């Protein structure tokens, strides 16, 4: 059990540095979102929700991509580290998607006049939320950890198919949701808004990296404790059997 301390995990100091940096960059992003970036000519100040909503959505997709990679890695190598990474990232992705849905709804009310509409992008995003909620429900229902990891890996891989569908939904279907604001052909907004968006994206990515490190440590330590307790149980059982045989 000597590796149980976070300080024993490689990169602990680096992770702490990332956490501090995330806080600093987030403070800059908030300053830019509320002071530096101009208010939108049509939507007014409520458009500033965009600097929260869009980076959270992009980083949630990144988190599910990491879960997808973790799932493939686990099914291929059968190494528990991949599953721990997938689990850790899926939880953060779920939290970020919750924020995306709530912030989107709070933007939709004043702009569209409704909290929710069964628009293609909103519906596919809600579906994504349910897929990863099911990911955790599945894990908790299957008692054998190896089987739970295998099933969850499959769900994490297939669940990720929804991400490109969400991204392309505004092109494939007629939707209320605005299209991509930044594309290969350039940005459909002033430079100050683009810079603010990218700083907010950097801050959200750093927060994700910090959380991922912490969550990964939690998952790893939980597994180590479970393994240790199982070994102790086996040893005790052996001892009892030996003592029984001597008597």
């Amino acid at each position, binding site marked *: *059990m*000597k590796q*149980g*301390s*976070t300080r024993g995990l490689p990169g602990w100091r680096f992770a702490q540095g990332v956490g501090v940096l995330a806080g600093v960059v987030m403070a800059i992003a908030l300053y830019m979102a509320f002071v530096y970036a101009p208010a939108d000519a049509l*939507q*007014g*100040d*409520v458009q*500033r*929700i965009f600097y*929260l*909503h869009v980076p*959270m959505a992009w980083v949630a997709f990144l988190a599910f991509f990491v879960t997808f990679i973790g799932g493939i890695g686990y099914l291929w190598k059968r190494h528990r580290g991949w599953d721990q990474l997938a689990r850790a990232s899926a939880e953060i992705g779920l*939290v970020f998607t*919750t*924020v995306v849905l*709530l*912030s989107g709804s*709070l*933007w939709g*009310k*004043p702009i569209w006049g409704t909290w929710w509409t069964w628009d293609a992008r909103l519906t596919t995003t809600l579906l994504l939320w349910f897929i990863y909620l099911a990911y955790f429900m599945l894990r908790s229902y299957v008692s054998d950890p190896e089987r739970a990891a295998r099933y969850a890996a499959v769900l994490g891989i297939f669940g990720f198919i929804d991400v490109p569908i969400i991204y392309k939904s505004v092109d494939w279907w007629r939707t209320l949701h605005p299209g991509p604001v930044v594309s290969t052909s350039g940005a459909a907004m002033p430079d100050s808004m683009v810079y603010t968006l990218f700083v907010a994206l950097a801050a959200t990515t750093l*927060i994700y990296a910090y*959380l991922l490190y*912490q*969550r990964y*440590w*939690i998952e790893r*330590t*939980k597994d180590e*404790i479970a393994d*240790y307790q199982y070994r102790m149980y086996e040893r005790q059982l052996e001892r009892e059997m030996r003592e029984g045989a001597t008597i």
Partner: protein
Amino acid sequence: MGDNLIYLFVAFLITWLIMAAYLWSIGRQVRNLRDEVQALENAELPAESPAPAPRRQEQVESSQA
């Protein structure tokens, strides 16, 4: 336009409340796990110290005699 500020405020408030609650929950889990690891390390320390050599059956019998 001024009325819409409440939506902006609530969106940021909810987001930061969720993030703060999540960070707090992670911090609590890390603390609990550290305590658990510490408790297990402490519990296994006596087992790691060299155990006395087991006495053979005839030694036990002669000492009893």
